């Protein structure tokens, strides 16, 4: 910075200095924005089997969910959601479409009440094969999911193959279907 009490006019160099510093700042934060890798929380559980947690059945209509143990005929989706979660409403029609394409979807409702879940299913449709209730976020903790909704691709052996954070949108269907196809081959 110029010493205002001595210089009659600030030097040319000093005048452009702030712009230079500012450009540097912009470059730095632009780099920070372009490399957001550090803010994404990815589950370390990819490639690991689902934990064996017993969860209660959530509603009469659907059976419960068996997380680990039983070998299945093919890959499936594990959808972590809740009736109090607004993005889950956005996701609901997309899950219906996945179901129509023959995907098996298991739901785990986080910190929820059975009445609320029933209400949610009535309003937004029921794409689930089985639904379990997780009142203490045990599954979330165990598989490293940071919020709702989140969806995991699970292969026939119960191994986690892919994690999708946030609601599944129309545009994500292709990706999810491709990952389900990958999961047909053993890891």
């Amino acid at each position: 910075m110029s010493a205002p009490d001595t210089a009659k006019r600030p030097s040319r160099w000093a005048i452009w200095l702030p712009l230079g510093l500012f450009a540097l700042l912009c470059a730095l934060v632009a780099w920070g924005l372009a490399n957001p890798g550090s803010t994404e929380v990815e589950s370390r559980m990819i490639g690991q089997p689902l934990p064996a947690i017993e969860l209660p059945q959530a509603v009469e209509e659907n059976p419960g969910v068996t997380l680990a143990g039983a070998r299945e005929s093919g890959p499936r989706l594990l959808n972590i959601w809740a009736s109090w979660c607004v993005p889950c409403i956005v996701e609901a029609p997309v899950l219906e479409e996945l179901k129509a394409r023959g995907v098996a979807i298991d739901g785990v409702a986080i910190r929820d009440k059975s009445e609320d879940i029933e209400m949610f299913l009535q309003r937004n449709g029921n794409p689930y094969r089985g639904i379990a209730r997780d009142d203490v976020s045990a599954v979330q903790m165990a598989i490293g999911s940071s919020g709702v909704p989140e969806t995991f691709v699970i292969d026939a052996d119960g191994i986690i193959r892919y994690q999708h954070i946030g609601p599944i949108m129309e545009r994500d269907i292709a990706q999810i279907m491709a990952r389900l196809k990958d999961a047909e081959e053993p890891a």
Partner: protein
Amino acid sequence: MIAEIGLVLLWLAAALAMLQLLSGAWSLTGKDGTDELRAETAGMVRPVAVMQGVLAALSFAMLAWLFVRTDLSVLLVALNSHSDKPFIFKLAGTWGNHEGSMLLWATVMGLAGALVALVERRLPEKTIVATLAAQAFVSLGFYAFLLFSSNPFERISPVPADGNGLNPLLQDIGLAFHPPTLYFGYVGLSVAFSFAVGALITREVGPAFARAMRPWVLGAWIFLTVGITAGSYWAYYELGWGGWWFWDPVENASLMPWLAATALLHSAGVLAARDALRTWTIMLGVVAFSMSMVGTFLVRSGILTSVHAFAVDPERGSFILVLLAIYIGGALTLFGLRAATVTEGKQFAAVSREASLVFNNVALTAILAIVLLGTLYPLVTEAFGTRVSIGPPYFNPMGAVFALPMMVVMAIGPLLRWRDDRFGRVGRALILPGLATIAVLVATLVLAPGIGVLPLLGLALAVGLAIASVIPLFGRNLRRTPLPIWGMVVSHLGLAVAVGGMASESAFSTERLVAAQVGDTVTVGPWSIELAAVEPVAGPNWTALQADMQASYEGGAPTQMLPQSRTFTSPPQTTSESALHTRWNGQLYTVIGELGEDGRWQLRLWWKPFVPLIWLGGLLVALGGALALVGRIISGWRRQYQARRIAMRREERPVGDLR
């Protein structure tokens, strides 16, 4: 319907901002008085600015109405409100989220522009037109942001059964008003920025410009001071960590504009009174606003992790970054082009009030640079592949290197005369504060030998400054002392009080972390506290476990303390509600934590001597600002009234040219 009306109003306001920018810019391209059409266009700018402010305000009112009615067909309401919420939090929900707060920003900015258009008559019309055009340019960015990337009036289908609720941490009356307070501050700085740009474009950098800009800076500075003080107190009692400042990126984001505004305020004072520091004042005007933009950017973009992470969205971050680059890059380029044509103004001696203000300006700027560097440092190192985080060990000593000498100069500066002075003349007045400083130094070293260097110096200088700050009132007729002088005295005293509180808190706090059974008694500092009971209680949208503690100070009559561990239902989250008890000499701070497996409760207890002084001091600083602002506004009115009377008399008997 309400949502659609709100959106239409928003579009109209944006269109008027565009008109304001284009007509202002076009009218400035011609030479003075040569073109009638241009003069007429310039005349349009003020009314357009007023209308733009009104439309933006109506649009915001529509959103507030939607929130009050809890209209869940609007996505923003569904995401951030809930029908069970108390009225005040429904209203606060309007700005307790990204879209709403951006709309609030645009609204306040529009209203500020309207106010400039209505009342500011001291500057040449050309400068006002340029200022309002610059203001419209800044507003347009925010309108574009709202309309294209974060429409607050977006509908949702199907309509959800009930809303998501506001983040429970934010369901607190203090916090409901914390963000708007800071926004008023940021917007005030945007007006100062527009004035600086307007003055640069029309080459009007002089005392009149400083006088016109000063009330806005002062107003912004008051709001920032209150906002930071309140935010610090909120973090103190709501987060339950017992600290009052964490050097968190978001806290720094509010501190940096404050530091710049403080410097700007003082240099604008020099410019107004003595016509010196012209370029420096313009520069600070740009820096102050850029710091508030950088602050918003850091909060919204999520490139730095912080306790305020609920506001994060990288896409929006890029948008703000682009706005930032356009405004600040543009202004700095203009500054580079024009600053060479601005002369530095009047000279002054090394011992003078100007010189002391320059010293403190430089110190404030240095602290600003330190905070900015410290805030961005994790990002810098990440660019080189390692992740680090720096905290108090960096900020405290580095800041103190400049803050402590600044306090010394603050004690002397107000006693000096403008332009040229001798230390000998003010030496006598400084004997008392000097002696007090030394006395506190010695007394503290004797009574508390283990004290750290920073708290020691802070405590001693705080006492010295507190005494020195009231000396300017000596020998004056207190009734006839101008309000701005009172303001300065109160603000400087407030700073001394706050620093005293900080030093005392960091030097003398005692902390206990214990596991206690119901019936146990624990001691912290001079207090002995009995955990009498733990019982469940329920509120409108939460349930809690509440501890009943009987706290007694040095064996006196017990006071009841009721800290809670609260569980909110929508969205589900647990927060700890601390319980505080304030005495004249400090504060007892209690938190209840988890229940252990052995049936004992985790308790966290602090005794913090004189800690309330921190916030009391902050409020005094703001009060001083308010006194000065009222004083300036009154004297401004008086001057305008007299100018009008002189003009009227001239009209009665015209003498030559009216201009």
